């Protein structure tokens, strides 16, 4: 029961987080944090929007869901529709084209997050003035790092363009395969810079690793809490971002389940609804809703994978595992290091694929015995992404359910927010912007994609508001707002 004199601090929406969200911090009369909650302003109309669509158009349409990770949705939908058209194994050319696209997407997404969204916090410190903690100051003080980030991101976008056919709204992944291969000219254009990308990836990874090691005390005390972890892994336990079976471990590294076919997802995962959030809270059924919540994404993947099948990333994975003493790393800030190991892995995989002649093959698409249901999972930049469809005899979608990475991490993000708020806000007479930034840093580590909203000019103000127990506004501050263009 909330004390009558409780106050609420709102941070809404979060800056440098995809989409819209707000954090409310509930204080009691002694200014102690009682609880903190991450609220998601999520549009839930998409699944209904898909109903009635033809199965072949779904992989293209789902890209409308998100401006941040359209490629992940494109591939997950195509993979689900493979099952519907009865194709369980793609041709080598089709699978490798899709993998190349996927690695390009994860690379550019993780690069954006590290170089341009998180680096201001890591390089200037969480307490630095808000005006200092942005990309423009990174450019001023670390210009080479910023330039590398731009070029790496552009490289990832070029892979997406060459493999998906277009820079946005690509259409190459189709039910049963792909509709294009990689030309020799496209391969040569990408090969020209791949060694540079691998080098920069490893240098950036070392920056993230060194930050973690040099700030071990902070990393160890900042939103570090036990949790379960879940991801796809290959049959031999290797990290596999495109395909595999599910593995979940507890906070000590004990296996909860392993090599579970993701098509049996419903038998192991359940979703809980809470009245204060639009977003569901998934949990592992066998552990129950109190203890069964889990993390997904880069940190979880480093914890669940037995090894990585590219040499440089595997060495760094071994370093990471030594750092966590061969137990699951539960430090929220370790997400950054884990994310950059994945970037290195992706660049290594990209090179491996570019040297594979299968990419230029002409056997692009298969057909099989038609099914009524399609379920697909892949490891998107932010974590496991599930697409589930039912399709009728007229090829029209009758059912659609998507469980996105941010939903999997819902409980973990709320735990992180509460943990940090209690540590940095409790008992403070005045809540300062750097204190609030600590809360945002905790959320940002998960790189959440909070919704797939529009961003037209005039939107996205950031307002911090303080309410008392009776919801009276007692203070507010505009931390960040999108300025209108200046008149000529």
């Amino acid at each position, binding site marked *: 029961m909330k004390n009558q004199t409780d106050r609420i601090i709102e941070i809404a929406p979060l*800056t*440098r*987080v*995809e*989409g819209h969200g707000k954090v409310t911090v509930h204080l009691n009369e002694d200014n102690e944090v009682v609880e903190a909650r991450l609220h998601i302003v999520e*549009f839930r*109309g*998409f699944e209904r*929007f898909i109903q009635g669509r033809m199965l072949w158009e779904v992989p293209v*349409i789902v*890209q*409308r*869901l998100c*401006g*941040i990770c*359209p490629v992940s949705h494109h591939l997950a939908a195509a993979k689900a529709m493979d099952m519907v058209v009865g194709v369980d194994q793609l041709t080598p050319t089709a699978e490798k084209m899709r993998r190349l696209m996927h690695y390009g997407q994860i690379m550019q997404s993780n690069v*954006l*997050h590290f*170089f*341009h*969204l998180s680096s201001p916090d890591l390089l200037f410190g969480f307490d630095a003035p808000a005006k200092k903690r*942005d*990309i*423009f100051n990174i*450019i*001023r003080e670390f*210009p080479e790092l*910023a*330039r590398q*980030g*731009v*070029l790496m*991101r*552009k490289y990832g*976008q*070029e892979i997406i*363009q060459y493999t998906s056919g277009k*820079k*946005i*709204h690509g259409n190459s992944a189709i039910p049963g395969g792909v509709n294009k291969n990689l030309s020799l000219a496209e391969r040569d254009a990408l090969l020209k810079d791949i060694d540079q990308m691998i080098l920069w990836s490893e240098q950036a990874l070392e920056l993230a690793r060194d930050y973690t090691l040099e700030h071990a005390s902070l990393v160890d005390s900042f939103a570090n809490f036990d949790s379960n972890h879940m991801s796809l892994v290959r049959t031999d336990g290797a990290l596999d971002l495109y395909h595999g079976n599910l593995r979940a471990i507890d906070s000590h590294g004990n296996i909860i389940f392993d090599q579970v076919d993701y098509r049996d997802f419903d038998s192991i995962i359940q979703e809980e609804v809470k009245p204060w959030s639009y977003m569901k809270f998934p949990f592992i059924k066998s552990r129950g809703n109190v203890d069964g919540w889990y993390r997904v994404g880069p940190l979880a993947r480093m914890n669940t994978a037995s090894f990585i099948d590219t040499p440089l990333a595997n060495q760094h994975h071994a370093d990471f595992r030594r750092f966590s003493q061969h137990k699951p790393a539960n430090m929220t800030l370790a997400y950054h290091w884990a994310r950059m190991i994945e970037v290195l892995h992706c660049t290594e995989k990209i090179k491996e694929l570019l040297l594979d002649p299968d990419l230029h093959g002409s056997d692009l698409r298969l057909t099989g015995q038609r099914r009524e249901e399609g379920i697909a999972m892949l490891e998107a930049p932010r974590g496991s992404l599930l697409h589930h469809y039912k399709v009728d005899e007229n090829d029209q979608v009758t059912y659609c359910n998507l469980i996105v990475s941010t939903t999997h991490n819902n409980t973990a993000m709320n735990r992180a927010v509460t943990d940090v708020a209690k540590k940095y806000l409790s008992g403070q007479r005045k809540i300062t912007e750097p204190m609030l930034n600590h809360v945002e840093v905790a959320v940002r580590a998960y790189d959440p994609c909070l919704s*797939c*909203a*529009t*961003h*037209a*000019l*005039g*939107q*996205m103000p950031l307002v911090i508001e303080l309410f008392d127990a009776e919801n009276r506004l007692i203070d507010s501050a505009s931390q*960040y*707002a*999108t*300025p*209108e*263009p*200046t*008149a*000529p």
Partner: protein
Amino acid sequence: MSAKLAKLENPAREKTIQPTRILLIGYGNPGRQDDGLGAACIETLTQRLAQKVEDRVSIHDLSNIELNTQVVYQLSVEEALDVSENDCVVFIDASLNGAESFEFLEISSSVGACFGSHSLNPQGVLELCDSLYRKQPDGYVLAIRGYEFDQFQEALSNKARDNLYQATDFLLHWLDEQATQANTRTKDDA
């Protein structure tokens, strides 16, 4: 990586006289109703230039303009590199609460730059361009007023469609002016 719509037609001149490079970036999510105005504007403009539709706007000689176009969901850091390779950039987006039917505003990197993964604004792109590549192309925003944004629907509202055509008319006029100025400069240089 931009699509080139118009190029120099006289290779002899290419050696000595550089065309005015104009980049049009339409951005937004076409799956969110009027948020697709930026992409629709690029598409409409491209069609009208290709078909040489001159019923509403007379299009003169664009030979001294190199016109590049891009359509993206949202502005991101890599746009700074493309912008740095142009003399002028126009950011085309839907406007939630701007003037009807559209606004065309000059912007600069020094005022209002901000960056977030979901909210890198045009001024921010210019600021990144300046900071990273020491280039300061002229910057403009074409903000086309939209009305419907909340549904997953790939269609513009009727009012937004009207605004789109007026904005495209304006953009064609503006390109024509830029071409005229470029032609004048070319003659002067010659």
